[in-house]
């Protein structure tokens, strides 16, 4: 079992500790409360430079300081209650404090009384991978002939790679996950001019990976956070130093901070579909353009227009009302792109410090209007590497070549 510090202000009072411990055990993590003496609380607050009104938050800071003194602890899980403003300040401060002083992977979570099991599972599983698979994640080059499959919630991506190059690809909507994968594999192999038996190893990631992994008899099956971080480093050919990855897919999004091409802190979306590619699909349908043309249409915008809601239902209703009020299609398209970028910014980017360079991957990265909105919002250039939609597939194809 991998020892991970649970640094929280009393999650047990939210009634979800049993669920956290249960999921942690399933992914091979032992959650531990770092030991600390009550007499050390004052000193810890001074060291971190913050003192909270809530005694448990001060204790939380003391536990963070103790974490660094325990070499058996390999990662940190930071928890405070959702909607607790003081808790959020302390949690972010601790994350920065730990991140500046160690390389251990850190995840933050705002707990609610009824958390979605899948949300917690995804986070803890990613944390476990980042700790236990570190040697594999250090790989910077794909070798031989391997296949990477990203069975996403919205689309299935397959790449065949040979000596660090993509030689074949398949990209299609996910319907029946297995049928979609079979077709993707067929397309990728045809593109590469290779036969299945010539593929030396297969790696799988994405939402459908458990099912697909068995179907294709995969050699490696890994969760998306560590794989996308690696794939992004490979696609943008930046393996050293700090970086930030924004990944927006069809139904969810991730913000990953990386160091030397390996994720070490991340935040996952999943609360609202309005910050996903699905929102833009619906928007392009109402604008009567193909999703692939939405970005270009948005770039033609000359007048700023805002949708009244981020919601998939009410945001689209606002879009329809805008069109009916005579707002130009290109201005509405730009507003839809801004809506997605704004929500990702407000819910995720704001929580984490951005470490340049910032790379944008996932299907939505191909919509130029969203990239432009991020650039205006953050005031920095955003990199969209070639084949950015294949970050997951390339990442897993590379990692599996190391097995």
């Amino acid at each position, binding site marked *: 079992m991998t020892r991970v510090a649970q640094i929280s*202000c*009393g*999650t*047990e*009072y*939210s*009634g*979800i*500790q*049993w669920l956290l*411990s249960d999921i942690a055990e399933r992914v091979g993590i032992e959650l531990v409360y770092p030991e600390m003496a*009550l007499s050390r*609380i004052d000193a810890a607050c001074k060291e971190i430079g913050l003192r*909270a*009104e*809530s*005694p*448990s*938050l001060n*204790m939380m800071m003391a536990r963070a300081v103790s974490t660094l003194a325990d070499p058996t602890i390999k990662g940190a899980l930071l928890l*405070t*209650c*959702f*909607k*607790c403003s*003081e*808790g959020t300040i302390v949690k972010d401060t601790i994350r920065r404090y730990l991140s500046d002083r160690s390389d251990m992977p850190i995840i933050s979570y705002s*707990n*609610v*009384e*009824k958390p979605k099991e899948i949300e917690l599972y995804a986070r803890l599983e990613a944390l476990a991978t980042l700790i236990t698979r570190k040697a594999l994640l250090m790989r910077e080059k794909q070798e031989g002939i391997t296949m990477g499959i990203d069975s996403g919630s919205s689309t299935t991506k397959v790449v065949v790679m040979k000596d660090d190059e993509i030689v074949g690809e398949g990209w299609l909507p996910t319907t029946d996950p297995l049928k979609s994968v079979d077709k993707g594999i067929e397309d990728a192999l045809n593109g590469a001019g290779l036969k299945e038996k010539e593929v030396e190893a297969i790696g799988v990631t994405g939402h459908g990976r458990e099912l697909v992994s068995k179907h294709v008899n995969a050699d490696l099956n890994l969760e998306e956070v560590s794989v996308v971080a690696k794939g992004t480093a490979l696609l943008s050919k930046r393996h050293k130093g700090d970086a930030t990855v924004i990944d927006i897919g069809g139904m969810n999004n991730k913000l990953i901070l990386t160091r030397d091409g390996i994720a070490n802190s991340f935040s996952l979306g999943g609360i609202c579909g309005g910050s996903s590619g699905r929102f833009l699909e619906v928007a392009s349908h109402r604008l009567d353009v193909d999703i692939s043309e939405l970005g270009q249409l948005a770039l033609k915008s000359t007048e700023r227009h805002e949708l009244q809601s981020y919601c998939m239902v009410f945001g689209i209703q606002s879009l329809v009302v805008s069109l009916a009020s005579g707002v130009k299609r290109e201005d509405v398209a730009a507003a839809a792109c801004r809506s997605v970028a704004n929500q990702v910014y407000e819910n995720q980017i704001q929580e984490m410090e951005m470490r340049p360079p910032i790379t944008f991957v996932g299907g939505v990265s191909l919509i130029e209007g969203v990239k432009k909105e991020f650039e205006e919002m953050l005031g920095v250039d955003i990199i969209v590497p070639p084949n950015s939609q294949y970050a997951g597939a390339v990442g897993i194809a590379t990692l599996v070549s190391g097995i």
Partner: protein
Amino acid sequence: MKILVYPPNSLILADLVERAGHEAVVLMREIGEHVRDAEIDAPPINVTEDDLKRALRYVSVEEPAGLKGRIGLLTPLLDKAEASVILSDAPPTYGCMGCAVADEFFKFLIRQRKIPTLEIKYEGKEKLEETVKGIMEFLVQLPKEGEISEKKG
């Protein structure tokens, strides 16, 4: 008399209450009942959805989960209390509930009960004797369990 102490897990205050011949209403007993309940499987302290729901009598659904959990656990204490001692600004070794907002709100709920209440401030080790004396004076003048029954009778 059943005396609710604040902080609600203060061993020191609970001891003073018992020395004065009263019954201390403390959080440990409430949590103990939860933990010993074989039908609840939510370790470590068996806070359940019911506890959080119970808190909704007092707080809005928008409050953070941990605050609801704390208030939900404390509510039965409020119902039992016939008098209370509130010690403010004490160091964590005197017991604490951790969440400042939950603490403040719980003190407000105690005051709302309009039961005999002593509010006293911790003013450091050097004034500890005076503090303890003040608490004991308050406690001993409260009627004991038997005395209340006699008066009622």
